[in-house]
């Protein structure tokens, strides 16, 4: 049996309550149900998660790497966008 014709799926796992789903990898499966089960077997066997999302890789629309200069570089010179200019009062922890 070959799975060459099965679509590729991107797998997202949520590790515990309150955290967001994170991309963990991809796999092939005939449909969404099989993708979730395969993801369960491949990516959660060491108790990595409590929730799985799968998305067909075809449905992911990505930014173009050749546009990286115009998309991301302009932000590099805008240091004022980082909240680093505030004085943090003494006694405030977890900042």
């Amino acid at each position, binding site marked *: 049996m070959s*799975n060459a014709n099965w679509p590729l799926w991107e797998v997202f796992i949520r590790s515990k309550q309150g955290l967001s789903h994170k991309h963990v990898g991809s796999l092939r499966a005939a449909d969404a149900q099989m993708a979730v089960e395969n993801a369960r077997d491949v990516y959660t066997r060491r108790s990595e998660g409590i929730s799985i999302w799968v998305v067909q890789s075809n449905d992911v629309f990505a930014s173009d790497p050749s546009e990286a200069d115009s998309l991301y570089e302009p932000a590099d010179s805008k240091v004022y966008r980082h909240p680093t200019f505030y004085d943090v009062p003494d006694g405030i922890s977890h900042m």
Partner: protein
Amino acid sequence: MNKNLFEYLLRLGDDSLIIGHRLSEWCGHGPILEEDIAMTNMALDFIGQATTIFEYAAKVENTGRDADALAFLRYEREYRNVLLVEQPNEDFAVTMVRQFLFDAFRKPLYEALQNSSDTQIAAIAEKSLKETKYHLKHSSEWVIRLGDGTEESHEKAQYAVDTLWRYTDELFFENEVDAALQAENVIPSLIPIREEWQKTVTDVLTEATLSIPQNGWKQQGGRTGLHSEHLGYILAELQYMQRAYPGMKW
């Protein structure tokens, strides 16, 4: 020692051990990477179940034999697994149909065993049921996919059903061991479990467009230690290290 309880634990443990071993034979040979891992996960679930069951059986027997000795140092006729679980993997369809026929039996069995008057058995059943529900879901979906798939996959799945059907009757084998344990509410009657098995199997095979063999010849023997020729080969592989290097650990 409670001989009936020991005997029953061997049935449970040997079914798990042998089907777990069969699944482990797929390790590295799965049809796709994801399914290879899935089958290996299931194999480990079953070996884990067998370990817990044999640990309890060793305690019940109380002769100094431990779980490893029960798993690795008995002779063929001392194994109590059903013939179904020792049947060869052949191809993926045979393996999945075998798994499905067994999981469909194990799920209602564990559900009922959760209410055992023996708290150890109830605890083992409760833990194993979670794994078993997933196994059944996995194997059912594959049976449906294969049966209701391409012409070739349908043909292979139907062959698997036809070949393995004769071994299904033995899942519901009962003798005086069961009667004694049922009287103490240690184990359930297999009659309602058979009804549920029948329903699951009929539903899934119908959805899979596979036909259910009508009656026909039934084969039994495993529960009383009379096995098919396949178990000997399994044991040769399973026991080789402990026989060649007694007491070895790694």
